[in-house]
């Protein structure tokens, strides 16, 4: 099984590599650092997509992480037994919502709401920083980050929960015996023991976030720009591939799309490997994240 997955990944990577020969030769490393994406003049730079991918993913992780870890702590350390299973099931149901449905909800419910309430509020309170300036369209990198947070919440929560559950009770007892309160036990015995694993869970969530396509495409605005403001529309590698491969009429254009795919594949693989290495130490989470 592991061999099969490895072979598949190598094969896909090789195909992407072959498919992107044209742009690899034509632009070299410039492809990664150039910010023009101009199919008409056959000039291709992936920087806006790389930027959009990372910024939206990082926003997603920053939002999801405290919520997920908080929930995982609540579920393993605090919640009464009868409540644990139902809450976890609810969270796992969130993961079962198809991306496109979440995207629809994003467009018709979340984005208008963000545009009318939270975004103007952010602009008023944090508008002095460059990140919350400029016109508010609703569709934006920030909206994409929020959708991503919703999508990666279940995975980070459930892996963190397994990590926390793998903390030996002898660690908790050591802290309790010193007269620690529940919260102190969680802090000194549980979280410090689990922090590497939780970092791994976060990386796993990041891996998901980077490749998330459908829902993000629907709320990010799809404009290959690099703007400081999080209210501005953006574009991600995955969205660009999904949107533009059918329009890629020239060979160079197609090659550029393939190269975007190659970049995305490499980035997600590296992230996932790091995540698995961190989590693997805890003897849990030996799961391969599902693709999109």
């Amino acid at each position, binding site marked *: 099984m592991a061999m099969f997955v490895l072979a598949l990944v190598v094969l896909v990577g090789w195909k992407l590599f072959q498919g992107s020969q044209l742009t690899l030769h034509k632009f070299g490393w410039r492809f990664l650092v150039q910010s023009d994406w101009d199919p008409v003049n056959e000039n291709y730079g992936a920087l806006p997509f790389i930027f959009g991918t990372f910024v939206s993913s990082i926003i997603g992780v920053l939002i999801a992480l405290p919520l997920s870890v908080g929930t995982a702590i609540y579920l393993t350390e605090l919640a009464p037994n009868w409540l644990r299973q139902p809450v976890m099931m609810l969270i796992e149901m969130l993961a079962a919502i198809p991306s496109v449905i979440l995207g629809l909800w994003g467009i018709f419910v979340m984005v208008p709401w963000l545009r009318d309430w939270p975004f103007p509020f952010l602009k008023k309170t944090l508008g002095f920083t460059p990140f919350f300036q400029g016109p508010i369209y609703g569709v934006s990198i920030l909206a994409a980050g929020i959708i991503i947070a919703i999508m990666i919440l279940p995975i980070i929560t459930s892996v963190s929960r397994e990590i926390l559950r793998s903390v030996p009770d002898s660690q908790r007892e*050591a802290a309790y015996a010193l007269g620690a309160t529940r919260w102190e036990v969680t802090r000194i015995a549980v979280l410090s023991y689990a922090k590497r694993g939780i970092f791994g869970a976060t990386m796993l969530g990041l891996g998901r976030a980077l490749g998330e396509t459908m829902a993000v495409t629907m709320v990010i605005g799809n404009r290959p720009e690099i703007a400081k403001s999080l209210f501005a529309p953006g574009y991600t590698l995955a969205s660009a591939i999904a949107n533009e491969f059918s329009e890629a009429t020239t060979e160079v254009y197609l090659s550029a799309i393939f190269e975007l795919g190659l970049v995305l594949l490499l980035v997600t693989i590296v992230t996932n490997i790091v995540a698995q290495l961190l989590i693997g130490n805890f003897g849990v989470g030996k799961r391969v994240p599902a693709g999109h």
Partner: protein
Amino acid sequence: MTLNSIPLSRLAGQATGIEASSVTPSPVAFDVRDLNIWFGSHQVLFDVALQVPARAVTAIIGPSGCGKSTLLRSLNRMHDLVPSARMEGRITLFGEDLYSKKIDPTLVRRRIGMVFQKSNPFPTMSIAENVTVGLRLNGLRKSDLLQERLETSLRMAALWDEVKDRLNAPAISLSGGQQQRLCIARALAVQPEVLLMDEPASALDPIATAHIEDLILDLKKEFTIVIVTHNMQQAARISEHTAFFYLGKLVEFDTTTKIFTTPAQKQTEDYVTGRFG
């Protein structure tokens, strides 16, 4: 020795499980009365009553599964953390009801140090941090005071000389015996009144065990110590009083000399002479 040769008066005393006057001339630390403990519907301790003398070592012996750890953990309210555990009875420490509604269980545990069978230092903390963590929980921040207590505790645990040059090394870089002494230092640092030890040397080699035993003999000058052990020689070497448990009942509680030379109960005699268990 057969059951028939035991004077009736002794038997009567044993039937209640205590013989306070003959056993405890020194002040009483723990006074356990009518203690019954269940896990779910499974009763583990039956009507246990015993008085643990202060500033002495009391050993708890008995075959495995007889409820020794369960008794020990009731003394610092560790069962509060096990949802299925239920307790009846009364336990006082120096006259104060440990299970009173008014008392905060975390404060109880702060007064009563505990050392576990398997050493459990905090792996992400250094040697020094492990020792001072309880103090820092109590809000102690002054570094010279922490430093002082760090040294005192490590000295009391007979570990200072071995670690004084690497206090900031990770706790898990120590050997098994050192880790257990580190756990003892950690328990001592918060200056508890009592030290509970659950087979603290059972995972250690003979040299490390001897270290721990010497340490216990030293500590009993200042602390009340209750130690669970399955090692009869160890109980004989270090304790003044010994309680023998069998199937959740306190069979006999007396001076260690008595338990090991002229026990009142046949079961005790069989156990200490190695005929079962």
